[in-house]
Protein backbone atom coordinates (compact mmCIF):
# COMPACT_ATOMS: atom_id res chain seq x y z
CA UNK A 1 0.00 0.00 0.00
CA UNK A 2 1.51 3.33 -1.02
CA UNK A 3 0.19 5.24 1.98
CA UNK A 4 1.88 2.74 4.33
CA UNK A 5 5.16 3.09 2.41
CA UNK A 6 4.84 6.84 2.59
CA UNK A 7 4.24 6.59 6.32
CA UNK A 8 7.35 4.45 6.81
CA UNK A 9 9.47 6.87 4.76
CA UNK A 10 8.09 9.84 6.66
CA UNK A 11 8.77 8.02 9.93
CA UNK A 12 12.40 7.29 9.13
CA UNK A 13 12.90 10.83 7.82
CA UNK A 14 11.46 12.17 11.05
CA UNK A 15 13.80 9.98 13.09
CA UNK A 16 16.79 11.09 11.00
CA UNK A 17 15.79 14.72 11.42
CA UNK A 18 15.34 14.22 15.14
CA UNK A 19 18.76 12.62 15.40
CA UNK A 20 20.40 15.47 13.51
CA UNK A 21 18.72 18.22 15.54
CA UNK A 22 19.50 16.41 18.81
CA UNK A 23 23.17 16.23 17.95
CA UNK A 24 23.25 19.82 16.71
CA UNK A 25 21.59 20.95 19.91
CA UNK A 26 24.13 19.07 22.02
CA UNK A 27 26.98 20.51 19.94
CA UNK A 28 25.64 24.03 20.40
CA UNK A 29 25.19 23.41 24.09
CA UNK A 30 28.75 22.16 24.46
CA UNK A 31 30.03 25.27 22.65
CA UNK A 32 28.16 27.47 25.12
CA UNK A 33 29.52 25.34 27.92
CA UNK A 34 33.07 25.92 26.61
CA UNK A 35 32.47 29.69 26.54
CA UNK A 36 31.16 29.55 30.12
CA UNK A 37 34.27 27.64 31.26
CA UNK A 38 36.55 30.20 29.61
CA UNK A 39 34.52 33.05 31.13
CA UNK A 40 34.98 31.49 34.58
CA UNK A 41 38.73 31.12 34.12
CA UNK A 42 39.86 34.38 35.80
CA UNK A 43 37.73 33.59 38.85
CA UNK A 44 39.14 30.07 39.03
CA UNK A 45 42.76 31.21 38.56
CA UNK A 46 42.45 33.67 41.44
CA UNK A 47 42.62 30.60 43.65
CA UNK A 48 45.43 28.83 41.93
CA UNK A 49 45.64 25.97 44.42
CA UNK A 50 42.42 24.52 42.98
CA UNK A 51 43.97 24.21 39.53
CA UNK A 52 47.33 23.02 40.91
CA UNK A 53 45.49 20.25 42.73
CA UNK A 54 43.88 19.14 39.46
CA UNK A 55 47.23 19.22 37.67
CA UNK A 56 48.41 16.81 40.34
CA UNK A 57 45.42 14.50 39.83
CA UNK A 58 45.40 14.62 36.03
CA UNK A 59 49.11 15.00 35.37
CA UNK A 60 51.25 13.59 38.15
CA UNK A 61 49.04 10.57 38.75
CA UNK A 62 49.07 9.77 35.00
CA UNK A 63 52.89 9.73 34.95
CA UNK A 64 53.35 6.01 35.53
CA UNK A 65 51.25 4.84 32.58
CA UNK A 66 52.57 7.59 30.29
CA UNK A 67 56.26 6.98 31.08
CA UNK A 68 56.06 3.19 30.80
CA UNK A 69 54.05 3.36 27.58
CA UNK A 70 56.48 5.89 26.10
CA UNK A 71 59.45 3.70 26.93
CA UNK A 72 57.95 0.60 25.36
CA UNK A 73 56.63 2.37 22.28
CA UNK A 74 60.15 3.75 21.70
CA UNK A 75 61.76 0.34 22.14
CA UNK A 76 59.33 -1.38 19.76
CA UNK A 77 59.71 1.44 17.26
CA UNK A 78 63.48 0.94 17.31
CA UNK A 79 63.20 -2.80 16.70
CA UNK A 80 60.73 -2.42 13.85
CA UNK A 81 62.52 0.59 12.37
CA UNK A 82 65.90 -1.12 12.43
CA UNK A 83 64.46 -4.17 10.66
CA UNK A 84 63.25 -2.04 7.76
CA UNK A 85 66.07 0.50 7.64
CA UNK A 86 68.91 -2.01 7.53
CA UNK A 87 67.52 -3.46 4.27
CA UNK A 88 68.36 -0.15 2.65
CA UNK A 89 71.56 0.31 4.62
CA UNK A 90 70.03 3.26 6.41
CA UNK A 91 70.24 1.93 9.96
CA UNK A 92 72.21 5.01 10.96
CA UNK A 93 68.96 6.98 10.54
CA UNK A 94 67.16 5.02 13.23
CA UNK A 95 67.36 7.98 15.64
CA UNK A 96 65.76 10.26 13.05
CA UNK A 97 62.93 7.84 12.35
CA UNK A 98 62.12 7.32 16.01
CA UNK A 99 62.39 10.99 16.99
CA UNK A 100 60.24 12.24 14.12
CA UNK A 101 57.57 9.57 14.64
CA UNK A 102 57.37 10.32 18.32
CA UNK A 103 57.57 14.10 18.28
CA UNK A 104 55.23 14.61 15.33
CA UNK A 105 52.65 11.88 15.82
CA UNK A 106 52.96 9.18 18.44
CA UNK A 107 53.81 11.45 21.36
CA UNK A 108 50.74 13.68 21.15
CA UNK A 109 48.35 11.01 19.83
CA UNK A 110 49.21 8.04 22.05
CA UNK A 111 49.74 10.21 25.11
CA UNK A 112 46.37 11.84 24.31
CA UNK A 113 44.62 8.47 24.04
CA UNK A 114 46.16 7.30 27.31
CA UNK A 115 45.34 10.62 28.95
CA UNK A 116 41.70 10.32 27.84
CA UNK A 117 41.32 6.88 29.35
CA UNK A 118 43.31 7.56 32.52
CA UNK A 119 42.52 11.18 33.44
CA UNK A 120 39.52 12.06 31.26
CA UNK A 121 37.44 9.16 32.51
CA UNK A 122 38.39 9.97 36.12
CA UNK A 123 37.32 13.61 35.70
CA UNK A 124 33.98 12.58 34.19
CA UNK A 125 33.32 10.00 36.88
CA UNK A 126 34.22 12.42 39.67
CA UNK A 127 32.03 15.27 38.43
CA UNK A 128 29.21 12.86 37.53
CA UNK A 129 29.29 11.33 41.01
CA UNK A 130 29.37 14.77 42.61
CA UNK A 131 26.24 15.52 40.63
CA UNK A 132 24.58 12.20 41.52
CA UNK A 133 25.23 12.72 45.24
CA UNK A 134 23.83 16.28 45.08
CA UNK A 135 27.22 17.86 45.84
CA UNK A 136 26.88 20.20 42.87
CA UNK A 137 23.33 21.13 43.89
CA UNK A 138 24.58 21.70 47.45
CA UNK A 139 27.25 24.03 46.10
CA UNK A 140 24.69 25.99 44.11
CA UNK A 141 22.56 26.34 47.21
CA UNK A 142 25.61 27.69 49.04
CA UNK A 143 25.79 30.40 46.39
CA UNK A 144 28.95 28.88 44.87
CA UNK A 145 28.98 28.31 41.13
CA UNK A 146 30.09 24.71 40.46
CA UNK A 147 31.25 25.79 37.01
CA UNK A 148 33.86 28.05 38.60
CA UNK A 149 34.67 25.88 41.61
CA UNK A 150 34.62 22.36 40.16
CA UNK A 151 34.57 22.38 36.37
CA UNK A 152 37.00 25.13 35.38
CA UNK A 153 39.94 24.01 37.56
CA UNK A 154 39.60 20.45 36.23
CA UNK A 155 39.48 21.71 32.67
CA UNK A 156 42.67 23.74 33.02
CA UNK A 157 44.36 21.01 35.02
CA UNK A 158 43.88 18.74 32.00
CA UNK A 159 44.87 21.37 29.44
CA UNK A 160 48.13 22.13 31.27
CA UNK A 161 49.00 18.49 32.01
CA UNK A 162 48.47 17.10 28.53
CA UNK A 163 51.38 18.79 26.62
CA UNK A 164 53.75 18.03 29.49
CA UNK A 165 52.74 14.37 29.45
CA UNK A 166 53.13 14.21 25.66
CA UNK A 167 56.63 15.71 25.93
CA UNK A 168 57.61 13.17 28.59
CA UNK A 169 56.14 10.37 26.47
CA UNK A 170 58.31 11.40 23.50
CA UNK A 171 61.40 11.79 25.70
CA UNK A 172 61.04 8.34 27.22
CA UNK A 173 60.32 6.96 23.72
CA UNK A 174 63.61 8.32 22.39
CA UNK A 175 65.40 6.94 25.43
CA UNK A 176 63.79 3.51 24.82
CA UNK A 177 64.95 3.60 21.20
CA UNK A 178 68.46 4.47 22.38
CA UNK A 179 68.52 1.47 24.71
CA UNK A 180 67.41 -0.91 21.97
CA UNK A 181 69.17 0.69 19.00
CA UNK A 182 72.52 1.64 20.51
CA UNK A 183 72.92 -0.59 23.53
CA UNK A 184 71.26 -3.78 22.27
CA UNK A 185 71.69 -3.72 18.49
CA UNK A 186 74.88 -1.74 18.45
CA UNK A 187 74.22 1.23 16.21
CA UNK A 188 76.87 3.93 16.61
CA UNK A 189 75.78 6.33 19.35
CA UNK A 190 77.24 9.35 17.56
CA UNK A 191 75.26 8.59 14.40
CA UNK A 192 72.10 7.94 16.40
CA UNK A 193 72.17 11.29 18.20
CA UNK A 194 73.92 13.33 15.50
CA UNK A 195 71.52 12.42 12.70
CA UNK A 196 68.59 13.02 15.02
CA UNK A 197 69.89 16.45 16.00
CA UNK A 198 70.38 17.59 12.40
CA UNK A 199 67.13 16.16 11.03
CA UNK A 200 64.64 17.25 13.68
CA UNK A 201 63.57 20.84 13.16
CA UNK A 202 62.45 22.73 16.23
CA UNK A 203 59.60 24.68 14.70
CA UNK A 204 58.40 22.26 12.06
CA UNK A 205 58.55 19.13 14.19
CA UNK A 206 58.75 19.88 17.89
CA UNK A 207 56.56 22.97 18.00
CA UNK A 208 53.91 21.41 15.78
CA UNK A 209 53.86 18.41 18.07
CA UNK A 210 53.38 20.66 21.07
CA UNK A 211 50.53 22.48 19.30
CA UNK A 212 48.87 19.14 18.65
CA UNK A 213 49.17 18.07 22.25
CA UNK A 214 47.69 21.38 23.46
CA UNK A 215 44.72 20.98 21.08
CA UNK A 216 44.20 17.38 22.23
CA UNK A 217 44.42 18.54 25.84
CA UNK A 218 41.66 21.10 25.27
CA UNK A 219 39.48 18.55 23.44
CA UNK A 220 39.86 15.75 26.00
CA UNK A 221 39.44 18.03 29.01
CA UNK A 222 36.38 19.74 27.55
CA UNK A 223 34.73 16.43 26.68
CA UNK A 224 35.54 15.05 30.13
CA UNK A 225 34.10 17.96 32.13
CA UNK A 226 31.13 18.34 29.78
CA UNK A 227 30.13 14.69 29.98
CA UNK A 228 30.56 14.68 33.76
CA UNK A 229 28.58 17.86 34.28
CA UNK A 230 25.76 16.67 32.04
CA UNK A 231 25.70 13.05 33.18
CA UNK A 232 22.40 11.60 34.30
CA UNK A 233 22.62 11.62 38.11
CA UNK A 234 22.37 7.83 38.44
CA UNK A 235 24.85 4.95 38.51
CA UNK A 236 24.09 4.06 34.88
CA UNK A 237 24.24 7.71 33.89
CA UNK A 238 27.73 8.16 35.32
CA UNK A 239 29.02 4.92 33.81
CA UNK A 240 27.71 5.72 30.35
CA UNK A 241 29.11 9.26 30.60
CA UNK A 242 32.53 7.83 31.47
CA UNK A 243 32.39 5.49 28.49
CA UNK A 244 31.32 8.35 26.23
CA UNK A 245 34.25 10.44 27.41
CA UNK A 246 36.77 7.78 26.41
CA UNK A 247 35.11 7.02 23.07
CA UNK A 248 34.46 10.63 22.06
CA UNK A 249 37.91 11.83 23.20
CA UNK A 250 39.66 9.08 21.27
CA UNK A 251 37.71 9.81 18.10
CA UNK A 252 38.25 13.54 18.55
CA UNK A 253 42.00 13.05 18.94
CA UNK A 254 42.24 10.95 15.77
CA UNK A 255 40.09 13.31 13.72
CA UNK A 256 41.84 16.44 14.99
CA UNK A 257 45.21 14.82 14.38
CA UNK A 258 44.38 14.27 10.73
CA UNK A 259 43.15 17.84 10.26
CA UNK A 260 46.13 19.36 12.06
CA UNK A 261 48.60 17.20 10.16
CA UNK A 262 47.10 18.28 6.85
CA UNK A 263 47.61 21.93 7.77
CA UNK A 264 51.04 21.55 9.37
CA UNK A 265 52.81 19.43 6.78
CA UNK A 266 51.16 20.84 3.68
CA UNK A 267 54.38 22.41 2.49
CA UNK A 268 56.47 19.30 3.18
CA UNK A 269 54.79 16.94 0.73
Amino acid at each position, binding site marked *: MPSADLGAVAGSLRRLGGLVTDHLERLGYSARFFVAVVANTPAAFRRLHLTLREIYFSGVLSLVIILISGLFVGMVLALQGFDVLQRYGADQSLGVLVALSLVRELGPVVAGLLFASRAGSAITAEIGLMKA*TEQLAAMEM*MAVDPLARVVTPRFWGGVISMPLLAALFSTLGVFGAYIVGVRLIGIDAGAFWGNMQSAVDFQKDVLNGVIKSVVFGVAVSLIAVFEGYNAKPTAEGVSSATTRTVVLSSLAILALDFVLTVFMFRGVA
Partner: protein
Amino acid sequence: MTGGVTGYNRCPPIVTQDSVSNSTDKAAVVAGPASPPEIAVELADVTFGYDPARRVLDGISMQIPRGNVVAIMGGSGCGKTTILRLIGGQLRPQSGRVLVGGVSVPDLDRDALFELRRKFGVLFQFGALFTDLTVFENVAFTLREHADLPEALLRDLVLMKLNSVGLRGAAELMPSELSGGMARRVALARAIALDPMIVLYDEPFAGLDPISLGVVGQLIRKLNDALGITSVVVTHDIYESLRIVDYIYFVSAGKIVWEGTPSEVRATGDAFVRQFVDGQADGPVPFHYPAPSYRDELLARA
Protein backbone atom coordinates in the same frame (compact mmCIF):
# COMPACT_ATOMS: atom_id res chain seq x y z
CA MET B 1 -11.00 16.70 64.72
CA THR B 2 -10.15 19.30 67.27
CA GLY B 3 -12.42 22.03 66.09
CA GLY B 4 -10.01 24.91 65.77
CA VAL B 5 -8.38 25.26 69.15
CA THR B 6 -5.92 27.76 67.79
CA GLY B 7 -7.75 28.62 64.64
CA TYR B 8 -5.00 26.86 62.65
CA ASN B 9 -6.78 23.62 62.33
CA ARG B 10 -8.77 22.58 59.36
CA CYS B 11 -9.17 19.26 57.70
CA PRO B 12 -10.89 19.94 54.43
CA PRO B 13 -11.46 17.28 51.81
CA ILE B 14 -8.83 17.46 49.08
CA VAL B 15 -11.19 18.61 46.35
CA THR B 16 -12.83 21.51 48.09
CA GLN B 17 -9.77 23.14 49.57
CA ASP B 18 -9.50 26.76 48.60
CA SER B 19 -5.84 27.53 48.97
CA VAL B 20 -6.04 31.28 48.43
CA SER B 21 -8.64 32.03 51.06
CA ASN B 22 -6.95 29.50 53.30
CA SER B 23 -3.68 31.42 53.24
CA THR B 24 -5.33 34.77 53.92
CA ASP B 25 -7.24 33.34 56.87
CA LYS B 26 -4.12 31.95 58.35
CA ALA B 27 -2.12 35.11 57.79
CA ALA B 28 -4.61 36.92 59.99
CA VAL B 29 -4.22 34.30 62.68
CA VAL B 30 -0.46 34.05 62.55
CA ALA B 31 0.07 37.78 62.31
CA GLY B 32 -2.18 38.39 65.32
CA PRO B 33 -3.00 41.85 66.57
CA ALA B 34 -0.43 42.30 69.36
CA SER B 35 3.03 41.24 68.22
CA PRO B 36 3.01 40.26 64.56
CA PRO B 37 5.57 37.53 63.96
CA GLU B 38 7.37 38.22 60.72
CA ILE B 39 6.74 35.79 57.87
CA ALA B 40 10.04 34.25 56.79
CA VAL B 41 8.74 32.14 53.91
CA GLU B 42 5.47 32.46 52.06
CA LEU B 43 4.05 30.39 49.24
CA ALA B 44 0.82 31.65 47.69
CA ASP B 45 -1.19 29.42 45.37
CA VAL B 46 1.92 27.86 43.84
CA THR B 47 1.57 25.41 40.98
CA PHE B 48 4.45 23.53 39.43
CA GLY B 49 5.03 20.59 37.10
CA TYR B 50 8.20 19.20 35.53
CA ASP B 51 6.19 18.70 32.37
CA PRO B 52 3.15 20.87 31.68
CA ALA B 53 0.74 17.95 31.50
CA ARG B 54 1.34 16.64 35.03
CA ARG B 55 1.31 18.98 37.98
CA VAL B 56 3.49 18.05 40.93
CA LEU B 57 2.19 20.93 43.03
CA ASP B 58 -1.33 22.20 42.55
CA GLY B 59 -2.19 25.36 44.47
CA ILE B 60 0.12 25.16 47.49
CA SER B 61 -0.11 27.99 50.01
CA MET B 62 1.81 28.22 53.26
CA GLN B 63 3.18 30.86 55.56
CA ILE B 64 6.12 30.10 57.80
CA PRO B 65 6.68 32.60 60.63
CA ARG B 66 10.20 33.57 61.62
CA GLY B 67 11.74 31.39 64.33
CA ASN B 68 9.47 28.41 63.76
CA VAL B 69 10.32 24.85 62.91
CA VAL B 70 7.81 23.74 60.31
CA ALA B 71 7.50 20.25 58.85
CA ILE B 72 6.20 19.41 55.41
CA MET B 73 5.08 15.79 55.42
CA GLY B 74 3.71 13.41 52.88
CA GLY B 75 4.40 10.17 51.10
CA SER B 76 7.32 9.65 48.76
CA GLY B 77 6.97 11.52 45.48
CA CYS B 78 4.17 13.84 46.62
CA GLY B 79 6.14 17.01 45.85
CA LYS B 80 7.74 17.77 49.23
CA THR B 81 11.26 18.21 47.93
CA THR B 82 9.89 20.28 45.04
CA ILE B 83 8.60 22.78 47.60
CA LEU B 84 12.12 23.15 49.03
CA ARG B 85 13.55 23.64 45.55
CA LEU B 86 11.02 26.38 44.88
CA ILE B 87 11.94 28.14 48.12
CA GLY B 88 15.64 27.86 47.28
CA GLY B 89 15.08 29.17 43.76
CA GLN B 90 16.33 26.00 42.06
CA LEU B 91 12.94 25.81 40.35
CA ARG B 92 10.46 28.47 39.30
CA PRO B 93 6.73 27.99 39.85
CA GLN B 94 4.39 27.97 36.87
CA SER B 95 2.08 30.28 38.76
CA GLY B 96 1.75 31.72 42.24
CA ARG B 97 4.22 33.54 44.46
CA VAL B 98 7.26 32.38 46.44
CA LEU B 99 8.45 34.98 48.93
CA VAL B 100 11.45 34.68 51.23
CA GLY B 101 11.76 37.53 53.69
CA GLY B 102 9.32 39.47 51.51
CA VAL B 103 11.45 39.02 48.37
CA SER B 104 9.96 37.24 45.39
CA VAL B 105 12.41 34.41 44.67
CA PRO B 106 11.40 33.55 41.06
CA ASP B 107 11.94 37.16 39.97
CA LEU B 108 15.56 37.33 41.11
CA ASP B 109 18.38 37.22 38.57
CA ARG B 110 21.30 34.87 39.15
CA ASP B 111 23.44 37.30 41.13
CA ALA B 112 20.57 38.37 43.38
CA LEU B 113 19.59 34.73 43.87
CA PHE B 114 23.14 33.83 44.93
CA GLU B 115 23.08 36.80 47.28
CA LEU B 116 19.84 35.53 48.82
CA ARG B 117 21.19 31.99 49.09
CA ARG B 118 23.94 33.19 51.40
CA LYS B 119 21.14 33.59 53.95
CA PHE B 120 20.10 29.96 53.40
CA GLY B 121 21.45 26.83 54.92
CA VAL B 122 20.49 23.58 53.24
CA LEU B 123 20.78 20.08 54.58
CA PHE B 124 20.50 17.71 51.66
CA GLN B 125 19.16 14.21 51.66
CA PHE B 126 22.07 12.02 52.85
CA GLY B 127 24.16 15.12 53.58
CA ALA B 128 25.82 15.71 50.19
CA LEU B 129 29.17 16.36 51.87
CA PHE B 130 32.05 17.11 49.52
CA THR B 131 33.78 13.77 49.38
CA ASP B 132 37.17 15.22 48.44
CA LEU B 133 37.38 17.49 51.50
CA THR B 134 37.86 16.72 55.20
CA VAL B 135 35.08 17.34 57.71
CA PHE B 136 36.83 20.58 58.72
CA GLU B 137 37.11 21.80 55.13
CA ASN B 138 33.48 20.87 54.44
CA VAL B 139 32.31 23.13 57.24
CA ALA B 140 34.85 25.80 56.26
CA PHE B 141 33.69 25.69 52.63
CA THR B 142 31.16 28.53 52.63
CA LEU B 143 33.32 30.60 54.98
CA ARG B 144 36.24 30.33 52.58
CA GLU B 145 34.04 31.04 49.57
CA HIS B 146 32.09 33.99 50.93
CA ALA B 147 34.03 35.51 53.81
CA ASP B 148 37.65 36.57 53.63
CA LEU B 149 38.62 35.60 57.18
CA PRO B 150 42.03 35.23 58.78
CA GLU B 151 42.93 31.55 59.11
CA ALA B 152 42.92 31.61 62.92
CA LEU B 153 39.42 33.10 63.11
CA LEU B 154 38.15 30.69 60.47
CA ARG B 155 39.56 27.78 62.45
CA ASP B 156 37.81 28.93 65.62
CA LEU B 157 34.51 29.41 63.81
CA VAL B 158 34.62 25.98 62.22
CA LEU B 159 35.52 24.30 65.51
CA MET B 160 32.63 26.12 67.20
CA LYS B 161 30.18 24.90 64.57
CA LEU B 162 31.54 21.36 64.81
CA ASN B 163 31.38 21.51 68.59
CA SER B 164 27.73 22.50 68.44
CA VAL B 165 26.96 19.23 66.65
CA GLY B 166 29.33 17.27 68.89
CA LEU B 167 31.90 16.42 66.22
CA ARG B 168 34.86 18.69 67.01
CA GLY B 169 36.92 15.53 67.47
CA ALA B 170 36.12 14.34 63.94
CA ALA B 171 37.43 17.46 62.21
CA GLU B 172 40.23 15.70 60.35
CA LEU B 173 38.23 12.69 59.15
CA MET B 174 37.13 12.28 55.54
CA PRO B 175 33.38 11.98 54.81
CA SER B 176 33.85 8.33 53.80
CA GLU B 177 34.99 7.57 57.37
CA LEU B 178 31.77 8.87 58.95
CA SER B 179 28.64 6.95 59.87
CA GLY B 180 25.35 8.10 58.33
CA GLY B 181 24.34 9.96 61.48
CA MET B 182 27.72 11.70 61.80
CA ALA B 183 27.64 12.73 58.14
CA ARG B 184 24.21 14.26 58.70
CA ARG B 185 25.54 16.22 61.69
CA VAL B 186 28.53 17.49 59.72
CA ALA B 187 26.15 18.58 56.96
CA LEU B 188 24.14 20.36 59.64
CA ALA B 189 27.25 22.18 60.89
CA ARG B 190 28.04 23.14 57.30
CA ALA B 191 24.48 24.40 56.76
CA ILE B 192 24.72 26.78 59.73
CA ALA B 193 28.31 27.89 59.03
CA LEU B 194 27.30 31.29 57.68
CA ASP B 195 24.66 31.87 60.39
CA PRO B 196 21.75 31.57 57.97
CA MET B 197 18.34 33.14 58.27
CA ILE B 198 16.53 30.03 57.06
CA VAL B 199 17.61 26.40 57.05
CA LEU B 200 15.96 23.94 54.69
CA TYR B 201 16.15 20.27 55.62
CA ASP B 202 15.51 17.64 52.96
CA GLU B 203 14.73 14.34 54.66
CA PRO B 204 17.14 14.89 57.57
CA PHE B 205 16.06 11.62 59.24
CA ALA B 206 16.17 9.26 56.26
CA GLY B 207 18.20 6.13 56.88
CA LEU B 208 19.31 6.96 60.44
CA ASP B 209 19.32 4.63 63.43
CA PRO B 210 17.00 5.66 66.32
CA ILE B 211 19.78 7.27 68.39
CA SER B 212 21.22 9.32 65.51
CA LEU B 213 17.68 10.22 64.52
CA GLY B 214 16.95 11.57 67.97
CA VAL B 215 20.25 13.46 68.04
CA VAL B 216 19.63 15.12 64.67
CA GLY B 217 16.06 15.97 65.65
CA GLN B 218 17.15 17.61 68.90
CA LEU B 219 19.92 19.49 67.07
CA ILE B 220 17.46 20.90 64.56
CA ARG B 221 15.30 22.24 67.39
CA LYS B 222 18.16 23.53 69.54
CA LEU B 223 20.04 25.22 66.74
CA ASN B 224 16.84 26.80 65.52
CA ASP B 225 16.14 28.35 68.91
CA ALA B 226 19.73 29.21 69.81
CA LEU B 227 20.55 30.93 66.51
CA GLY B 228 17.10 32.39 65.90
CA ILE B 229 16.71 30.75 62.52
CA THR B 230 13.63 29.53 60.73
CA SER B 231 13.61 25.83 59.80
CA VAL B 232 11.65 24.06 57.10
CA VAL B 233 11.86 20.28 57.46
CA VAL B 234 10.72 18.02 54.66
CA THR B 235 10.30 14.54 56.06
CA HIS B 236 8.11 11.50 56.35
CA ASP B 237 9.21 10.65 59.86
CA ILE B 238 6.07 11.50 61.82
CA TYR B 239 7.22 10.58 65.33
CA GLU B 240 10.39 12.63 65.35
CA SER B 241 8.56 15.55 63.74
CA LEU B 242 5.82 15.58 66.34
CA ARG B 243 8.51 15.95 69.01
CA ILE B 244 10.38 18.89 67.56
CA VAL B 245 8.26 21.01 65.22
CA ASP B 246 5.82 23.87 65.79
CA TYR B 247 3.56 23.25 62.84
CA ILE B 248 2.97 20.53 60.26
CA TYR B 249 1.69 20.62 56.70
CA PHE B 250 0.53 17.37 55.15
CA VAL B 251 0.92 17.26 51.39
CA SER B 252 -0.67 14.69 49.13
CA ALA B 253 -0.93 14.66 45.34
CA GLY B 254 0.36 18.21 45.12
CA LYS B 255 -2.08 19.76 47.58
CA ILE B 256 -2.01 20.59 51.26
CA VAL B 257 -4.57 18.17 52.68
CA TRP B 258 -4.22 19.02 56.35
CA GLU B 259 -2.23 21.34 58.59
CA GLY B 260 -1.90 21.92 62.30
CA THR B 261 0.26 21.84 65.41
CA PRO B 262 1.63 18.52 66.77
CA SER B 263 -1.05 18.32 69.48
CA GLU B 264 -3.73 18.83 66.84
CA VAL B 265 -2.16 16.09 64.74
CA ARG B 266 -2.37 13.67 67.68
CA ALA B 267 -6.00 14.55 68.30
CA THR B 268 -7.36 14.73 64.76
CA GLY B 269 -9.61 12.13 63.22
CA ASP B 270 -8.78 13.18 59.67
CA ALA B 271 -8.54 10.07 57.54
CA PHE B 272 -5.33 11.02 55.74
CA VAL B 273 -3.48 12.10 58.87
CA ARG B 274 -4.59 8.97 60.73
CA GLN B 275 -3.42 6.78 57.88
CA PHE B 276 -0.08 8.58 57.89
CA VAL B 277 0.43 8.64 61.65
CA ASP B 278 -0.71 5.04 62.19
CA GLY B 279 0.99 3.72 59.07
CA GLN B 280 -2.10 2.02 57.63
CA ALA B 281 -1.59 0.33 54.28
CA ASP B 282 -4.88 1.42 52.78
CA GLY B 283 -6.92 4.59 53.17
CA PRO B 284 -7.11 7.93 51.37
CA VAL B 285 -3.73 6.96 49.93
CA PRO B 286 -4.74 3.71 48.22
CA PHE B 287 -2.73 0.52 48.50
CA HIS B 288 -3.38 -0.33 44.86
CA TYR B 289 -1.90 1.49 41.92
CA PRO B 290 -4.80 2.55 39.65
CA ALA B 291 -5.85 -0.48 37.59
CA PRO B 292 -8.93 -1.81 35.80
CA SER B 293 -11.32 -4.03 37.76
CA TYR B 294 -9.55 -7.06 39.27
CA ARG B 295 -12.44 -9.35 38.34
CA ASP B 296 -12.59 -8.16 34.72
CA GLU B 297 -8.87 -8.54 34.25
CA LEU B 298 -8.74 -12.09 35.60
CA LEU B 299 -11.77 -13.18 33.59
CA ALA B 300 -10.51 -11.56 30.42
CA ARG B 301 -7.29 -13.52 30.63
CA ALA B 302 -9.01 -16.85 31.24
